[in-house]
């Protein structure tokens, strides 16, 4: 009649399962550390090499065959032009496409094909977009290796991923919100305009910033277009030749080590990283503001 003895210490199978659980934690931590560690080392090395060259003169000087006199002026201006034009060209198309697919498109097999293609296009290597840009915009449309050709190429590259991110954000908007609006006699467009878009905006913003960051760092596609030139003036319109910061970095990196251009490349990388970080920060601020409204 003695009370049954219940052992609550981990034994047998439970002990093994718990050991595995504890072990998994360390494996996952190690995986995270490898990624962060490599990144931290790269950042340290870049800053260590380039920080000394990071002066106001470096930002405001044109390129030069002397490393100490060379600067980022024309490539920063070129980047701003190309990115600005890319945003203007890509965003209306991308957001419009996402709204149409999620809110208005008839759900049929054709739509499934379109969605599948968008996902595939988002995974196409950028050099392919460069070849497309060279054939269609530079040659066929006779735009030359101009800012407009570059922006059109980058727009084609970022539209698929922006569409996918925006679609995802629009899908996250609860159906009950749409129902509430439609039940009040709002039209489909009024519902999208006043409820779906404001709700989806933070998610759409995230997608836009990721896409624009990628465009900001794009090199291969633009070099393919022929934007690998020596620019010693300020761009003033869309039909001029141009260079961008990543192209300039590539340009400096491939020079012989002795000339000191590697230091310039590191300094330029710091500038590019800071710019992309700032973009992300702005996106985060906008996102938070909308979330709290």
């Amino acid at each position: 009649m003695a009370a049954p003895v219940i052992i609550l210490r981990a034994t047998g199978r439970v002990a093994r399962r718990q050991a595995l659980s504890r072990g998994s934690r360390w494996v996952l931590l190690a995986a995270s550390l490898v990624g962060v560690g490599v990144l931290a080392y790269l950042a340290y090395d870049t800053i260590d090499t380039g920080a000394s060259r990071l002066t106001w003169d470096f930002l405001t000087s044109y390129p030069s065959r002397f490393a100490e006199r060379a600067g980022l002026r024309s490539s920063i201006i070129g980047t701003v032009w190309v990115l600005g034009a890319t945003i203007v060209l890509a965003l209306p198309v991308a957001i419009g496409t996402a709204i149409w697919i999620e809110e208005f498109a008839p759900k049929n097999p054709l739509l499934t094909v379109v969605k599948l293609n968008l996902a595939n296009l988002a995974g196409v290597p950028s050099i392919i977009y460069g070849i497309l840009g060279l054939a269609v915009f530079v040659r066929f449309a006779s735009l030359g290796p101009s800012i407009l050709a570059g922006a059109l190429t980058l727009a084609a590259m970022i539209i698929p991923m922006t569409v996918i991110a925006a679609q995802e954000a629009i899908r996250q908007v609860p159906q009950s919100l749409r129902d509430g609006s439609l039940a009040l006699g709002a039209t489909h467009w009024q519902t999208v305009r006043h409820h779906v878009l404001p709700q989806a905006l933070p998610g759409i913003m995230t997608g836009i910033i990721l896409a624009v960051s990628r465009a900001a760092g794009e090199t291969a596609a633009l070099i393919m277009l022929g934007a690998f030139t020596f620019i010693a003036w300020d761009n003033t319109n869309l039909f001029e030749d141009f260079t961008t910061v990543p192209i300039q970095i590539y340009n400096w990196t491939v020079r012989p080590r002795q000339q000191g251009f590697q230091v310039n490349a590191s300094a330029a990388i710091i500038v590019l990283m800071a710019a992309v970080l700032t973009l992300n920060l702005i996106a985060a601020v906008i996102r938070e503001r909308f979330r709290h409204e």
Partner: protein
Amino acid sequence: MARLDLETVATRTRDQELQEGDRAATKMSTSGGLRPATEPSPGISFGEPLFVLRDLSFWYGNKPALADVTMAFPVNRVTALIGPSGCGKSTLLRCLNRMNELIPGVRLTGEVTYHSQDIYASDIDPVEVRRRIGMVFQKPNPFPKSIYDNVAFGARVNGYRGDMDELVERSLKQAALFDEVKDDLRKSGLALSGGQQQRLCIARALAVGPDVILMDEPCSALDPFATLKIEDLIRELVEDFTIIIVTHNMQQAARVSDFTAFMLAGEDGAGRLIEYGPTEKVFTNPEEQRTEDYITGRFG
């Protein structure tokens, strides 16, 4: 245009109504089979009905959800739709303001008239239908905007030109919410309690100026106290509005409704109207054994 049509409708003679009622009744009795012995208009006469359904059937894809429902809803009364889950009562409610057609692949046959107009006729615009027929949902779904904007939204999109402040205040008062929120109409609608949110949704519906409010289990996400407030509100609103309420809660149906319709899904999954009559009669002396079984808790 539509307003003109409604006025024409209002001047119809009593004869026409009676004839229409007869026609509906005849249709019902001729369809035979598993048909309930209910009249489209239950027990007592209630004048011109607001909605008349004739042989309404509904499918989600190939899945039948409603089969041959024929019934009429009285003006300025609370009508409750009760029945176990999956009996089609929410589907029926959503057929009344064309919210069902937002789901792809649905199909509807039969007729739904509102003020004697077939709302599924080809020349009828669902937006016009929905702005005249208010709806409150199961889960309170205020917009993530201020209380003021929640109420004003419907009026704004419908091109309301009057004094918006006055309309917002009046609607909130009608929904018995004004006193609780009057100090800060700029506060987010999401900051309110569940019961307040649901009353905000009612105010929002009222601001568009409907004459009927459809309520889809409006209290199922609320505590008993908030539920009581909504029920009191329903009894107040029925002075000026027609209310059709879907509820799982039979005590609630008994407390708030004038008429009760009991629905049940058949073996094919399609909901059918089993019994429809004055609430008191349905609850105390139902005609159908299945109604009695459900009401006394023997199933469902």
